[in-house]
């Protein structure tokens, strides 16, 4: 049976002035988590807050989330210190399907770098071929960058001057060919990356974000428009938390 876990924060560090990297002990979540899945974390506000799983250490039974401060809940959570008790639901949602033998292009913008970090971690350890392209506003915003990544900045003060698609354009034909694209970031970016993938004949998956309450599929508040399965209907409202957050790009109605 699934459970709501009462966990402890094990460590916290600030990645930049408004982004915290928080390690939480929960062996059950650490052992079950897949890249692209998320957790729902309690704070003193009424509802929990959803965060993509950013890293997992099965040995120590911990996982990490990156928390960018945007409001009251995230300010509180980013200020948590080791020892803090939190209630956590997870791992939640459908993550990315990672198959041995396939190769991947991982693309991240904004807080999308966190789930992409986990995907990279898993692929690296399983020897799955992949490249990572990440876009930031400017140099200061770069978090969890890795020398192997292709980085872009809108401001041009680090990496390639431009956005993720400009980064993708620097990939060699070989890198692109037969890859599966996985993208997490703001909507316009995911749309652009999805279109880039389509124009290169690649299958793409995107991770949708929506305001949530339960995170487990019972309240239907977190829906996004997905192409209807039944003929005659324009679209279905699918739950980001349970049916997603990862959806095939071509099924999302933008």
């Amino acid at each position: 049976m699934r459970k709501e876990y009462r966990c402890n924060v094990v460590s916290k560090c600030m990645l930049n002035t408004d982004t915290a990297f928080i390690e939480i002990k929960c062996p059950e979540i650490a052992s079950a988590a897949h890249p692209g899945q998320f957790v729902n974390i309690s704070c003193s506000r009424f509802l929990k807050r959803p965060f993509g799983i950013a890293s997992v250490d099965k040995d120590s039974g911990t996982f990490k989330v990156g928390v960018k401060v945007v409001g009251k809940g995230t300010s509180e959570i980013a200020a948590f210190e080791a020892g803090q008790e939190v209630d956590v639901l997870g791992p939640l949602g459908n993550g990315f399907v990672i198959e041995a033998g396939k190769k991947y292009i991982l693309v991240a913008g904004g807080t999308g770098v966190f789930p992409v970090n986990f995907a990279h971690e898993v692929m690296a350890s399983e020897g799955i071929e992949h490249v990572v392209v990440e876009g930031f506003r400017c140099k200061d915003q770069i978090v969890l960058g890795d020398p192997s990544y292709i980085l872009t900045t809108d401001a041009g003060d680090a990496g390639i001057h431009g956005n993720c698609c400009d980064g993708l354009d620097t990939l060699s034909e070989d890198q692109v060919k037969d890859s599966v694209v996985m993208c997490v970031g703001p909507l316009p970016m995911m749309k652009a990356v999805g279109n880039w993938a389509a124009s290169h004949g690649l299958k793409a998956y995107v991770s949708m974000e929506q305001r949530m309450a339960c995170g487990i599929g019972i309240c239907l508040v977190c829906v996004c428009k997905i192409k209807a399965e039944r003929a005659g209907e324009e679209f279905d409202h699918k739950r980001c938390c349970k049916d997603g957050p990862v959806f095939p790009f071509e099924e999302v109605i933008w």
Partner: protein
Amino acid sequence: MSNPISVKVGSVELKSPIILASGTCNFGHELSEYYDLSILGGLSSKGLTIKPRVGNPGVRVAETAAGMLNSVGLQNPGVDYFIEHDLDYMDSLGCARIINVAGHSFDDYMAMIDKLAPHKDKIDALEINLSCPNVKAGCMSIGSDPEQIKLIVSSMRKKTDLPLWIKLTPNVTDIKTMALAAQEGGADAVVLINTLLGMAVNIKTRRPVLNNNTGGYSGPAVKPVAIRMVSECYQVLDIPIIGCGGISNYEDVLEFMIAGASAVEIGTASLVHPTCPVDITADLKDWCEKSGESLSSLTGTLQLW
């Protein structure tokens, strides 16, 4: 006293007073991953309509102090799909099968009864949601007009002998009149309360947080209003009351039952802590053991000043 937490709502026997509230448990599939739903008294399905509904677009939830607003807008697969795909599942759960019925007009509700009545062996009660904002009678909802309530309930009554639980909206001047109208129409019970109508404003965008502008307010914040309405109605009704609104622990359940509820529904609390009904059930059993009382004997024991 074999099971001290068993209760009765009219003819419906429930092994526990805890029913999962409509719209906060879907049809049970997801919560079954968290606990065995057979410990519950019942589960009330997501509100169903004749046709499938995609519900409202955009942002559908706004957090508030001690509660939340939702504007799901009755997203559901439609009653036919439900009967074909989910009714058997609900039937298998081992708790009372409450089917929540919504509609946009008198005819809608009648059509719903016609669809559901033939499946009465798989249904313990029909919960009739009379607080849908878009109905034939005009801009005011059926649930705030006693004449309409009485008409619709008595018309349903003629179509089925399934227990009819009428779920009322708290957004009215006098809830007693509405509850009495339901009783006069032949209701078997009333469910108090559905959500309060609320709004939240995003001060940066200067737009309502919810794309539907307003939403239904639920959670601990609404409990004092719900308790007051249960108590008011208990004083005038002959039919049982199912209490609902902000319940999040066993003490809340006792409060509702003392005020007049024969059973209760848990809504928003499941969204915050999916397994809270498990804890509440254990705590209620514990309370019965310690006090030597059965829960059903609590109903309406409130002594007013």
